[in-house]
């Protein structure tokens, strides 16, 4: 017995040695790949790899690019956490990053993205002021949080620090943005709702919900606490530890007293909570309201007097892009801002960075309903053909200027982000 064991010991060791050698050889051979870049290729042979969140990574866009520009755009849709991770850690895996402005603030310092020369962007002058000076109209005040213009420019082609004003070198070309607020079931509430404080109104005990994505949920919570007059914030988009503690204390107390029916994390969950009547007031996203309505259930994206929590996304270029691929990317950006995509996105209820050009790709009825806040003169349908509104309906919140002019806060990433996340986890576990 002892003899046998000793022998097997020897053979096992030799087996492992062999295995290690094989593995080593396999890894070694892996390093000998990689092909020389062929520069002489026509732009039609270019393939650009784009990734981003599901909202704007649409196959319809890729198909239209192939049709209009001739080159191939490969789309990958991910959730916002994976998007951040990929932009930060896998610079070789993409050419174009479709990310939100607050993600840009996190990712830009890694140097994985390159600044864009605004002189090459034809419709630069027509881009909405929010993304350049931060002001929608010259009289507007700039909202709190990671406002897009504050991370929209760097001081030069290789700049790693944000400039805060127009420099000619842009980090992201804005593509899509919107103003978020609370969704309500008017049939089950039966009275007007006009303030964020209603989320914690005991009248809706066991019938309220908030989204369980810490970076956005904390903002909605802050809008509520500020409206209640319980907490005064220096900047809701960049809270101090004390402000985070106070906010979470108020929400933890509400949770313990049974204010919330559930928390939601995905789009579908928010739709189901609202449609089934489990919840009558909750944080919600614009297309989710549309989804509830399309089931024939009344649902309103309620404008509130304290204003909206807003978000915006844009496309950035990988620092690996050069030569003809970089040219193709600029061509893609110019095409993006030329109106077709804008019209497509605006017919889903989002806003485009250059509304003027999008107008050419929308009917007068659609433009009036989505942008100007006018009564629809006929049926309003989504780009995929679903009916969203009938003649006589108006958009919740009204016109572009009414909605985007009333932004109180932008989605943000805080300096105390890790502390906030821990506090948020405590709130969920409480």
């Amino acid at each position: 017995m002892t003899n046998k064991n000793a022998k097997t010991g020897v053979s096992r060791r030799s087996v492992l040695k062999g295995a290690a050698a094989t593995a080593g050889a396999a890894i070694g051979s892996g390093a000998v790949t990689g092909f020389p870049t062929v520069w002489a290729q026509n732009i039609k042979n270019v393939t650009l790899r784009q990734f981003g969140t599901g909202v704007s990574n649409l196959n319809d866009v890729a198909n239209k690019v192939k049709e209009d520009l001739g080159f191939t755009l490969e789309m990958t849709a991910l959730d916002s956490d994976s998007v951040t991770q990929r932009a930060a850690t896998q610079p070789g895996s993409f050419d174009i990053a479709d990310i939100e402005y607050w993600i840009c603030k996190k990712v830009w310092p890694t140097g994985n993205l390159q600044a864009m020369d605004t002189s090459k962007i034809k419709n630069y002058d027509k881009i909405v002021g929010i993304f350049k000076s931060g002001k929608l109209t010259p009289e507007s005040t700039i909202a709190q949080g990671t406002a897009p213009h504050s991370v929209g420019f760097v001081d030069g082609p290789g700049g790693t620090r944000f400039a805060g004003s127009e420099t000619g070198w842009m980090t992201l070309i804005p593509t899509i943005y919107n103003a978020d607020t609370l969704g309500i079931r008017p049939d089950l509430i039966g009275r007007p709702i006009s303030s964020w404080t209603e989320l914690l109104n005991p009248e809706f005990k066991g019938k309220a919900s908030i989204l369980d994505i810490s970076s956005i949920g904390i903002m909605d919570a802050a809008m509520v606490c500020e409206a209640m007059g319980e907490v005064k914030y220096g900047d809701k988009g960049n809270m101090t530890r004390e402000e985070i503690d106070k906010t979470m204390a108020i929400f933890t107390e509400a949770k313990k007293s049974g204010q919330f029916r559930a928390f939601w994390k995905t789009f579908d969950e928010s739709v189901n909570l609202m449609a089934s009547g489990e919840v009558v007031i909750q944080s919600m996203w614009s297309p989710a309201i549309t989804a509830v309505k399309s089931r024939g259930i009344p649902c309103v994206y309620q404008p509130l007097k304290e204003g909206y929590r807003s978000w915006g996304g844009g496309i950035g270029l990988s620092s690996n892009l050069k030569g003809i691929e970089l040219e193709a990317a600029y061509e893609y950006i110019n095409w993006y801002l030329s109106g077709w995509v804008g019209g497509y996105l605006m017919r889903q209820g989002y806003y485009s960075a250059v509304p003027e050009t999008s107008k050419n790709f929308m009917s007068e009825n659609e433009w009036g309903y989505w942008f100007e806040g006018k009564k629809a003169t006929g049926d309003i349908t989504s780009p995929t053909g679903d009916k969203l509104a009938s003649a006589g309906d108006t958009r919740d919140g009204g016109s572009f200027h009414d909605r985007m002019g009333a932004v109180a806060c932008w989605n943000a990433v805080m300096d105390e982000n890790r502390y906030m996340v821990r506090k948020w986890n405590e709130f969920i576990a409480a």
Partner: protein
Amino acid sequence: MSDQTLAIETAAPAPESKPARRGLSDALSGWLLSLPLMLVLFFFLLLPIAMIVVVSFWGATEFSIYPAFQFDNYEFLLTSPVTYSVFLNTVKYAVISWACTLLIGFTIAYFLAFHVRSLVWQIALFLVCTIPFWTSNIIRMISWIPFLGRNGIANSTLIQFGVIDRPLEWLLYSDFSVILAFVHLYTLFMVVPIFNTMMRIDKSLIEAAYDNGATGFQTLTNVIIPLTKPGIMIGSIFVVTLVMGDFITVRFMSGSQKANVGRLISNDIALLQYPSACATAVILLITVLLVIAVLLRFVDIRKEL
């Protein structure tokens, strides 16, 4: 293995030098035979666990992790009151789900093994038990949501029959719904091993107990339960480890309002805090191993099988 060796030995008359040579090839072929499993376990079990332990000492920024040897993750984990309440909650789910699945699973297995007389019916009824498993467990779980909801089938039926006036709020998004889903999902893991051991109990033992004047209850506690212990243990290990490692059931059935350890880990992963997720996973692994060690103290499964 030994049978095979024996067969070879009897088939060929052994020359003088053979035992030594065969000893070598025995060892070699033994190791070669176990090599595939060894490699699989090494690369897909030991290596990943080792990685998790290593990374649990690393540090993290917003978007990256960096190698280090620090106890920050454990320090934060073990000093936060949330950790303890969440572990307590996880154990609570495990204990209650275990008790319910054991009671239901044992009863079903007992019925199948001792009350159903023909083997055909036993097999048929056993297969009936597995029918729900033809769909994914996420679907089985989510289908409870419209059933238990405020305006769901359960509430509207009860109101219709005049049992209650207002919908019962605690049916959904509560500890009740979480445990209900666990029991529904995992009872079969209790039924199968218990049924299996019960089928192997010699029927003459039960007859002997009866002949000696034991009541039905005495037979149950003195004969059947002791003899089904290994099945109960295996079922318990299944249920306890599944419940303690779960995160999706708790998230969906509690409407994200309750937390267990799995959810802590999944939150950390979503926020790119891998080292902290690893530290939590290591603590969870240790807890589960301790629980299993305690369970194995009661029954020596190797001996009983």
